[in-house]
């Protein structure tokens, strides 16, 4: 067993895990942060996307031990301090960018990563960036619009380009 400690959503946490334990399993099973989901076993679907030291990571591709000492952010820590939805979450609700909700945490985390690095993406940028996040419900139309809205751009104008 490996001892580890890290910061998750701003709070220090620690645990004892098998060497083979994935970060996503540590988050879900040990910390009971079940908002991060597992949708595949080949790192294709992106439902498990979290931020590790400020970078979007599919938490099924990383051992928990590799995150020892890291600063980890999950969907549970994304809302505003008063509990209201943050800009990205609100844009997803406003534009009906989710249906069953299973891929949604990963989509929100991937979107935050995109907008950090490219604050005003166009439609093609959004689609390219989200290629590692699969949604089976929405057909992506409303997700693309939600991401553009979260960037503060005029959605219809950007989407029509």
């Amino acid at each position, binding site marked *: 067993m490996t001892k580890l400690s890290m910061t998750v959503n701003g709070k220090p946490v620690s645990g004892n895990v*098998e060497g*083979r334990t994935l970060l996503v399993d540590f988050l*879900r*099973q040990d910390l*009971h*942060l*079940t*908002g*991060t*989901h*597992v*949708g*595949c*076993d*080949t790192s*294709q*679907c992106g*439902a498990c996307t979290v931020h590790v030291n400020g970078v979007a990571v599919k938490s099924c591709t990383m051992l928990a031990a590799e995150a020892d000492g890291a600063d980890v952010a*999950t*969907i*549970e820590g*994304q*809302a505003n301090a008063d509990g209201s*939805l943050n800009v990205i*979450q609100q844009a*997803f*609700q*406003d534009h*009906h960018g*989710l*249906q*069953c*909700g*299973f*891929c*949604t*945490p990963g989509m*929100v985390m991937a979107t935050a990563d995109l907008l950090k690095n490219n604050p005003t993406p166009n*439609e*093609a940028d*959004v*689609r*390219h960036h*989200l*290629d590692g*996040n*699969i*949604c*089976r*419900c*929405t*057909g*992506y*139309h*409303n*997700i*693309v619009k939600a991401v553009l809205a979260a960037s503060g751009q005029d959605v219809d104008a950007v*989407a029509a380009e």
Partner: protein
Amino acid sequence: MPKDSGIGASPKRREDIRFLTGLGQYTDDISLTGETHAVFARSQVATGIIKSIDTSAAENMPGVLAVFTGDDFVDVGGNPAGWLINSRDGEPMKEPKRPVLAHGKVRHVGDAYAAVIAETAEQARDAAEAIEADIDEQPAVVDMKSALAGGALVHDEIGTNQCFDWGWIEDNRAATDAAIKSAPHVTTLELVNNRLVPNAMEPRASTGVFDPGTGDYTLYTTSQNPHLTRLLICAFVLGIPENKLRVVAPDVGGGFGSKIYHYGEEALVLSAAKKLGRPVRWTASRSESFLTDAHGRDHVTKIEIACEKDGTFLAFRTETMANVGAYLSNFSTATPTFLHGTLMAGNYTVPTLYVNVKAVFTNTAPVDAYRGAGRPEATYSLERAIDKCAQELGMDPLALRRKNFIKPDQFPYAAAAGLEYDTGNYHALVDKLEELADLSGFEARRAATKATGKLRGIGVNTYIEACGIAPSNLVGVLGSRVGLYDAATVRVNATGNISVMVGAHSHGQGHETAFPQVVADMLGIDEGSIDIVHGDTSKIPFGMGTYGSRSLAVCGSAVVRATEKIINKAKKIAAHMMEASEQDVEFSEGQFSIAGTDKSVGFGDVALKAYIPHNFPIEDIEPGLEETAFYDPANFTYPAGAYACEVEVDPDTGKVTIDRFTAVDDFGNVINPMIVTGQVHGGLAQGIGQALLENCTYDENGQILSASFMDYAMPRASDLPLYTVDHSCQTPCTHNPLGVKGCGEAGAIGSPPAVVNAVINALHSGGHTDVTHIDMPVSPARVWAAMNS
């Protein structure tokens, strides 16, 4: 000015808040005290005789609590098919037992033959790998044609690989044959409706719990229909009394059909929980989902259209082989028959038609209803063939369709495939499509594309579907072993807020937002004070769940009926409160009043009186304000639509890019336009995915070649366009109280032929007029080969 609440408004979805903040509760998110973990040992060969299974090493591994094999389940029942189909000769279909765990023989890759229960999932996985199974691999049956030709058998005991040989409508066969024989023109098309994997993003998961103190079982499971799952487990498989099993389907991460069915893992975790006295959890890996979830489609079809030289349709004839896989999944026999053959008249006034379907067992995963379920197969073959017919006759594809449409004044219309369509206006749909898709501007766009060296094509089609599944009397005659009503209970609490318990299950459809809109409109109260309860058999009335675009049309109608009962009872109470006659009480906007007087009481006052019945006419009215209604539809509903797709084809690579997609649908009345539009988007993505990307393939030995997201091409954001969606052409359903038709499957039904028609059109514009068809998925390799053959 759009409404901001009630029917026709688009309030934001209330369920989104928990999904967006990580607070959704999916089955695998639920941890229980003392829980254990199940992992299955699955066949790695397509078929083989189980000679022995040595579990001794596994049983002695760390943390292992129990190992089960097929021997442990020989005395329990099989998982049944829900629909009895009779062959043309009157013989009932062949129905081999589908056991909890394979016994004697494995029949597809992934067929489970043992299960390990251990303290942790990792320990269970390690132990499952230590099970020594001596399985003597046998020749596999994979291809349907060879399966019917004789040789190896999937089920030795039934002596054939043919499940049934079904004719529809048998009495029309001779007339159809004669019409085709003598027709001035016959178009023939052979095509494959490719096998798909539903791939809801949440893999299947089940947790079984047994309480030795009460003898009660609880099953948490990823289900679209908890009561149906309970019925199957109790009445057919494990023999548990229904009142001793609670089935809970909490938040479910998409279904698309694959979570309608009962699967053996559910029975295993319940049995194991009883044996161990501890909760038993199982969650599928994505690989297991590919191997064991019910797949979709997989038809090989020949269709003929007989017509006059002017395009007037005379007869349609369809011959289909439908793969049912290694075992009959619950709806697998209904899907290629009564959800397919009955739709083969499409939107048209064809005088006669005949459909023959041979269902075939193969050593592949079971195949069952996947979004659209039979109706996409019908639409695809008919609408592709009509396009080919138009080309052969030199007619515009839309003009040929218009010529044969059922006219608006012909409804209700008894179509040649046996269904009576209540309402529709297909001409209006096509008119709207021409406008929204800017069909008149196509040639200019084609010229612009040509200047870039690419080929632009346009494909159009219409569709009809039968939704709101289903009238129990009718489906009973046709072989259904269950009724297909739904149910709702409206409970007005003493303080005036309302819980609505529904049989439908929401796993993305937004019921928690849309159903309150209906109740709020009827009661004139704030929809925020109305909550929907679903997914738990201990809380909801016996409903049949969510599939077949039925939730609003069937369960929503039950909600309306129950709410009407609430209003009727509340009127009685209000009459007493106002010392007036019940007949004089009027109800509007949440207020009960007596016409011509200033007497009035609010809905909340009546609710309070119902639960604090002081000075209450107990002899005439029961206390409380709670009503249940079951609703069984009088007919199917008949959504219809007209779709247009524009593609660009790169002649150097064969790659197809969708540039524009326009979907015009008639769903009857619409309760929440935002949600309906979202449902169409998702359906379109799945239909376009089928047309361009997705393909589940097995090799000749029955090994699945596309069992991960690295091998199976799921549509991703960059594969798809922004869609133009319209549902303003509304011919309300005449037989349900909301006038709604259902919208969940339309996009997946209507879109594949539009895509393929567009690709063929593009190739013809590039001079490849000899290319009359390309099977789905229309991949770059297939397009390139067609252009260069």
